[in-house]
């Protein structure tokens, strides 16, 4: 069980060693990175199979031998283990295979992996901040090295927003520390009803929400999303939209549950979620560029997730997890389809005849995204609607109205694309696509004519996601049970506390040989 620490440590080790090893052999260095990812997956699967009790019992892992709250601990429960598994898997899936880049890019990918795992596992407020910063800097760097100078500019704007956000988060942590004098989440949670249930606590929540919200595509601090996703490769966009945003959301939710019991905190998050849904979908409706549309759709979906998590009680938790997991599957798949479809949607005219299977895949994915029964997306939306209607209060009523409207708008623009794809007359594209550079970088500088092709790997991912969606439909019963237990475990404060502090212990002296 202690091996879980290796999920963070081994990628870091690999990241440090890769440039060194690459000096003698680049192949070995690359293999090193990949093998660390496989080892990580192996470790998690091993934990999963070895201790079947993880389903029922969470574990707290002490780092440095100092029991919390003095030391830092990792908290492993179902949801963090799930995401810890998702991190290496998705990094592996969206590994920048085809790009002949420097070894340092792989190194950055490993750092991203480590920080993502650390973020989801960590049980210490400041440790979360450190991993969050590491995640941020790794992603700024990864965005900035995508070749084009526009990526650098987008990344710089992202960096400004992210840094100001994390400064705000640090401010929130400082306020919490002045109130409680501790940083361990379980300990904070123990003290929260007494110490943080006031205006200062709420203020620190607002600050932390803003800081983490930058990565989580929370409403006002997400203006980086279209710029960054528009200028990076689909692989990275898929990773960022699919995985990193969800990690930040889950951490926010964990903090919310453990630290901030106030209803105002929920309302604030819900309000921002609603605004995110509304603006995201509205702008996506206008967008004429495929990737830009996906980015704004992602903003909208994240808004839905925030709205769902702002519903108190089990229903909201279930809805939030369901939408988050669903989006985590679908959006990367859509970005993978975007590998061949970058550029204006008008250029997609007649695509359906050239690649009917891909279009069919696209339709299945967006149907699920829209929440058309019986695809999994529907059940998530259904939970959200039921949860919203179960609450009184302005925010939730507003959500009841906005969410369906947003879905209608989303449907309108997504099916506009489908109709364009099935159009017969593709003789005259409305705009020229001569400047598109696709992921495979098949660029001929002579007349900048581009061959756009889906990467086979991306298609395979999209197809397997679609298959997974259908498999979930066939296994609705177990899936919903699993969801319920995830939600229960995530929303149980006392469970968290009692896991980290099995007995109220006096801080045990470390035996010194």
């Amino acid at each position, binding site marked *: 069980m202690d091996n879980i620490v290796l999920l963070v440590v081994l990628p870091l080790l690999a990241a440090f060693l890769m440039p060194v090893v690459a000096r003698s052999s680049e192949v070995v260095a690359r293999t090193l990175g990949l093998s660390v990812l496989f080892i990580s997956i192996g470790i998690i699967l091993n934990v999963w199979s070895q201790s079947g009790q993880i389903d029922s019992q969470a574990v707290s892992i002490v780092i440095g031998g100092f029991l919390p709250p003095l030391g830092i601990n990792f908290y492993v429960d179902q949801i963090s283990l799930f995401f810890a598994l998702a991190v290496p898997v998705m990094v592996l899936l969206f590994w920048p295979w085809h790009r002949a880049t420097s070894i340092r890019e792989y190194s950055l990918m490993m750092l991203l992996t480590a920080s993502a795992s650390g973020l989801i596992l960590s049980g210490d407020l400041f*440790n979360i901040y450190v991993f969050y910063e590491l995640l941020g800097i790794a992603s700024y760097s990864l965005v900035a090295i995508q070749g084009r100078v526009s990526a650098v500019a987008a990344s710089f704007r992202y960096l400004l927003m992210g840094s100001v956000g994390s400064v705000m988060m640090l401010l929130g942590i400082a306020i919490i520390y002045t109130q409680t004098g501790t940083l361990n989440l379980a300990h904070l949670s123990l003290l929260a009803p007494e110490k943080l249930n006031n205006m200062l606590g709420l203020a620190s929540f607002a600050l932390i929400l803003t800081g983490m919200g930058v990565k989580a595509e929370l409403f006002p601090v997400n203006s980086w999303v279209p710029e960054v996703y528009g200028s990076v490769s689909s692989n990275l966009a898929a990773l960022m939209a699919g995985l990193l945003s969800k990690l930040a959301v889950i951490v926010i939710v964990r903090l919310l549950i453990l630290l901030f019991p106030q209803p105002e905190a929920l309302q604030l998050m819900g309000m921002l979620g609603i605004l995110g849904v509304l603006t995201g979908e509205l702008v996506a409706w206008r967008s004429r560029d495929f990737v830009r549309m996906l980015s704004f759709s992602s903003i909208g979906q994240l808004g839905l997730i925030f709205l769902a998590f702002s519903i108190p009680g089990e229903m909201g938790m279930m809805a939030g997890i369901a939408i988050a997991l669903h989006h985590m599957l679908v959006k990367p798949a859509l970005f993978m389809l975007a590998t061949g479809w970058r550029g204006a949607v008008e250029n997609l005219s007649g695509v359906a005849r050239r690649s009917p299977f891909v279009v069919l895949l696209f339709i299945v994915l967006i149907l699920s995204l829209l929440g058309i029964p019986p695809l999994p997306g529907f059940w998530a939306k259904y939970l959200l609607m039921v949860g919203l209607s179960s609450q009184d209060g302005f925010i939730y009523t507003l959500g009841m109205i906005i969410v369906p409207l947003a879905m209608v708008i989303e449907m309108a623009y997504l099916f506009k694309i489908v109709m364009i794809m099935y159009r017969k007359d593709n003789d005259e594209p409305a705009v020229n696509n001569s400047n598109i550079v696709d992921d495979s970088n098949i660029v001929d500088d002579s007349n900048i004519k581009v061959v756009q092709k889906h990467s086979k790997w991306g298609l395979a991912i999209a197809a397997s996601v679609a298959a997974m969606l259908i498999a979930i439909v066939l296994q609705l019963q177990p899936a919903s049970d699993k969801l319920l237990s995830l939600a229960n475990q995530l929303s149980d404060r006392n469970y968290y506390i009692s896991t980290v502090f099995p007995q109220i212990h006096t801080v045990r002296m470390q035996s010194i040989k």
Partner: protein
Amino acid sequence: MRNIAGLLFAGGLAFLLLVLASYLPYGQTPMFLGDAILAHAPGEVHTANIVAAVLLAYRGIDTLGELSILFTAAAGVGLILGHRSLRSDSAGVNGAVNSEQHSGFITTRAVDLIMPLLMVVGFYIIFYGHVTPGGGFQGGVILATAFFLPVLVRPGTRIEHGVITLLEGLAGSGFILVGLWAMFYDQPFLQPIFDSFLGTGPLGSLWSAGSLPLLYLAVGLKVGSELAGLLVTVSEVPELSETNISDADDINRK
């Protein structure tokens, strides 16, 4: 419009934060964590400098993360500045490298003299980090400065990046390996190790804190090499001016 909005938000925020600050305690914060660590650190990790104990022992993984952040930043800077639009041999950039004048003889000599001294000071600060104020970070910065000063006074000097790469990789790995060493003994990751060789001295002496000085050494070397790397990378960028805007093709091929 934007200025008005900016002033409005900043002013509002100033007011609100001041109000928030008026609720904050001053000088009597609840120090649960601090008190506990102050009480236990001398006994548990044998460091006189409790900040070092917090950094390396109690919150060791924070420090690891921090080192990774520096590493990431250095790698990112290296990759961004490695683009050919920023290389001195790039077509769009004139040969501006040599525009910086060689410093005078006195400066050069002085720097050459002062460099070993700085190195010694840096290592001293690192090694005594767990005993007195200072430690890996401060010492690392001094090391980086010491390394970089000769480059500064001799513009155009080509630095072999290999040394820095090697050093930063090995120092970072060293930190992790010390942590993994504990796991090898079935202890949690990063647990300080005290055995007959390490950490037998009395509190306040150099060999008192188990494996912590090793960690601090790793931190110092890591910070030093990263910062030196940063400085060197930036120093290799040619001077840009309005006239030599590079429209170098955007496809990054290395």
